[in-house]
């Protein structure tokens, strides 16, 4: 974690105070996004992947609150930034594409209006309406939209799911952000379109030289498209490192269990062993390893707060057995 990272998250805690207790959705997350890389963030629903990056953008809604931690981006701590400065940064420097492209596009505005307005929101004065429109056409062509000039006047419901996701990506890219957060860009799409959209994101990353955070619950997708991967479990990063290395030799029991529970095309007869037990309730968690109740290697040493420990070249894992 010594490289000059584009985005460095340190000890981030985002908690939701509810009537039942404090939900520690993000509890001590350390993450780095390096310039130009694609980082995959993998985890189950509720593991804190989305909450982490909503915290980065300052979009956590009450009763959620960033309790502690630093979010260093461009030399500034986003967790301390005034709301107005954070807003100016959103969309211009860091953009996010939402999970469901149908609901994330405004049904009452044409696609062209939505793209043009995003461009104009950050480039006020610099780009006139005509220039912004030309840029929208150019961007739509770049993402592979046929007949971009004509489709600019269409409403979101007139597009197919894959095309809508392309529009979302276009809007996210319209101000050439340094970091694109793609929050499960493919969940609402069928498999062939999934590949097209992921290829598009990969191409855009190379062309624009930006970093991409690919949030997914699909380890296969991440393995194919990401340089590095971070696995999250119950609000914490449990393992991170170069994708290949992590998949070839997982260090954390959760990663190991996850990989064992996936079917392999190369070995279809291999038995699939799901991880026993359930994700813990995030309310009032004890100060011990979160994976302890489900871990096959559970020991007394696990009964205290476990930190992320270096686990080889550029790799980290949150397990006591690493240190041993």
């Amino acid at each position: 974690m010594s490289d000059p990272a584009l985005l460095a998250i340190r000890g981030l805690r985002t908690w939701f105070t509810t009537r039942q207790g404090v939900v520690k959705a993000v509890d001590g997350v350390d993450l780095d996004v390096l310039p130009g890389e694609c980082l995959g963030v993998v985890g189950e629903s509720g593991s804190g992947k989305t909450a982490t990056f909503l915290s980065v953008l300052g979009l956590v809604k009450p009763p959620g609150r960033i309790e502690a931690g630093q979010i260093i981006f461009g030399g500034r701590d986003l967790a301390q930034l005034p709301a107005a400065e954070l807003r100016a940064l959103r969309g211009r420097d860091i953009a996010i594409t939402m999970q469901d492209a149908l609901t994330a596009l405004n049904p009452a505005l044409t696609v062209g209006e939505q793209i043009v307005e995003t461009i104009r929101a950050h480039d006020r004065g610099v780009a006139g309406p005509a220039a912004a429109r030309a840029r929208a056409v150019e961007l739509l062509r770049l993402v592979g939209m046929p007949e971009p000039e004509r489709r600019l006047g269409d409403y979101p419901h007139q597009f197919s799911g894959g095309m809508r996701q392309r529009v979302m990506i276009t809007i996210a890219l319209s101000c050439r952000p340094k970091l694109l957060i793609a929050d499960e860009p493919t969940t609402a799409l069928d498999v062939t379109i999934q590949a097209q959209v992921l290829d598009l994101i990969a191409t855009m990353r190379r062309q624009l030289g930006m970093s991409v955070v690919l949030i997914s619950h699909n380890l296969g997708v991440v393995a194919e498209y990401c340089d590095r991967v971070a696995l999250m479990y119950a609000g914490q990063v449990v393992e991170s490192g170069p994708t290949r290395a992590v998949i070839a030799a997982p260090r954390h029991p959760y990663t190991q269990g996850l990989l064992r529970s996936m079917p392999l095309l190369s070995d279809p007869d291999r038995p699939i062993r799901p991880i026993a037990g359930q994700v813990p309730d995030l309310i009032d968690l004890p100060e011990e390893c979160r994976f302890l109740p489900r871990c096959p290697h559970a020991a007394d040493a696990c009964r205290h707060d476990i930190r992320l420990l270096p686990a080889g070249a550029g790799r980290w894992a949150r397990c006591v057995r690493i240190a041993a």
Partner: protein
Amino acid sequence: MSVQAVEARAPAKAATDAVAQPVESIFIANLRDFRRNRLAVASVAMVGLFALMAIFAPYLAPHDPYASDLFRRLQPPAWLDGGEWAYPMGCDGLGRDILSRAIYGARVSMTIGVAVMMVAAMAGMIAGLAAGYLRGWTDIAISRVVDVLLGFPYLILAIGLMAAMGPGLGNIVLALAIKEWVLPCRVARAETLAAREMEYVEAARALGASRLHIMLREILPNILSPLIVVCTMRMAWIIIMEASLSFLGLGVQPPVPSWGSMVADGRQFLIGAWWVSTLPGVMILLLVLAINLASQGLRDAFDPRMRT
């Protein structure tokens, strides 16, 4: 019909199903639905006629609405004994032509209906958007004012305000708008509460949109249809309210002709000269009915929740 023609149509239809099916905005589709509703279209035409009548009153009215001729006091309509075709609907207690006055009366009703609705719609929309989107103290403050105003009987509030401010067109608009904005406000607030939780609002925030931008550009277009429907429906009610105020002598002051005051003028002659009150009453009825039917047609076509 020849077989050839059928065959020629089939592939064309398949092609439109595949490609052209979506190329139509929601608005155009709604408009087409609306045009299918004959009664609603007829009602819109009717409202249009009243509007034209108001605009071109000086050219349409056969006589000066203010000119009184005491020899024609309570002259009956043309088809009754003692009537003449120069004064088709007869004359009122001061010998003024009722038809001309009724035509001029459309000006007052239409002006006040439109003006009050514009003021109320704008104020209510802005307040409702602010309350629904900003929540917190803004919402509490606006909602409490709304609750208080809803508690007042409409007419009594208007009477009190008119008595305090004195008569005049501007004061009528103000007196009615002070309560009328509450309804568009409640609709706007409720719709905004639903819209603010939509993912496209979250997406707009994620792209750095300001609160003003989100309210006016992201949410407003999505809540406009129910607002328009509510406002047109309320316009009929406002016209009745203006007539009521004028009937009570608190509206437009004589000699300016207003349907409400014309009905009131004729009241004392109701037994002997029923026609003095009748024509303005029928005018009120027709205009209000036309607006109501038109707005119901609008609601059926434009409010998505009315669809089954």
